[in-house]
């Protein structure tokens, strides 16, 4: 199963990529929203895990672009939220995100369940 992680923070990129690869996922990373869209147009992932605060194009910008793209709009998106981003999560869900995970409180079991649930919304 292919997952694209759009996250500008290298430490968190590496942390989540390592954890998910160890559990059998094929994981790619993108440093910002523009690179995430480029990557998705090259190879469609089964799931996009999307940070909201990124340089160049943020997560909201990515969601808006995806909604306009007939090919990519069906790829499920799971938001990476953190402490204090509750209203941002609601806005992202309104823009089409299918799920979210709080990246600050790492719980692998919960993350794997969230991934399965989000992919099933496809």
């Amino acid at each position, binding site marked *: 199963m292919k997952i694209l992680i759009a996250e*500008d*923070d*290298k*430490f*968190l990129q*590496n*942390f989540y990529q390592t*954890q998910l690869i160890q559990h059998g996922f094929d994981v790619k990373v993108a440093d910002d929203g523009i690179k995430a869209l480029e990557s998705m147009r090259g190879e469609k992932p089964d799931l996009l895990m999307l940070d909201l*605060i*990124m*340089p160049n194009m943020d997560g909201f910008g990515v969601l808006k672009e995806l909604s306009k793209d007939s090919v990519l709009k069906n790829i499920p998106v799971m938001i990476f939220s*953190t*402490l*204090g981003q509750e209203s941002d999560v609601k806005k992202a869900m309104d823009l089409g995100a299918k799920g979210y995970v709080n*990246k*600050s*409180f*790492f*719980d*692998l*079991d919960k993350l794997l369940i969230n991934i399965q649930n989000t992919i099933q919304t496809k």
Partner: protein
Amino acid sequence: MTFDLKEYKQSYLDSARSLVDQMKILLESINEAEDIKTFHRFAHSLKSQALVMGFQYIGLTGRALEVIFKELLDNKGIMKIDAENIDIYKKALTSVENALDEIEKNDEEADLTETIKKLEDIAGVPILSLLKII
């Protein structure tokens, strides 16, 4: 299921120190919206990295700075960047540096309650109370 903290400790310390260094440099001449936006993003990363590693005080210090700089970014007109506040932000970052040194030596986080209280006063929203939910 959990992860081995030690596996990520050094990369966390390197990354957090790099963030703090960049934030301190930005504070030397912060004025333009782009600088405030970048500082806000760094504070967001400082918070997220610390919390994923279980370092709550550094996480909440990052959160407080994130709230303050979001307010500045949104230009709500109440909060201003002045020399006195910049000094508080610099001291907060020095406290974070010391806390990172403590983690490196003893694997334990220093108590940054006083630092967070000072930032909380500027932010105007409760931050320390979040300790109860994380």
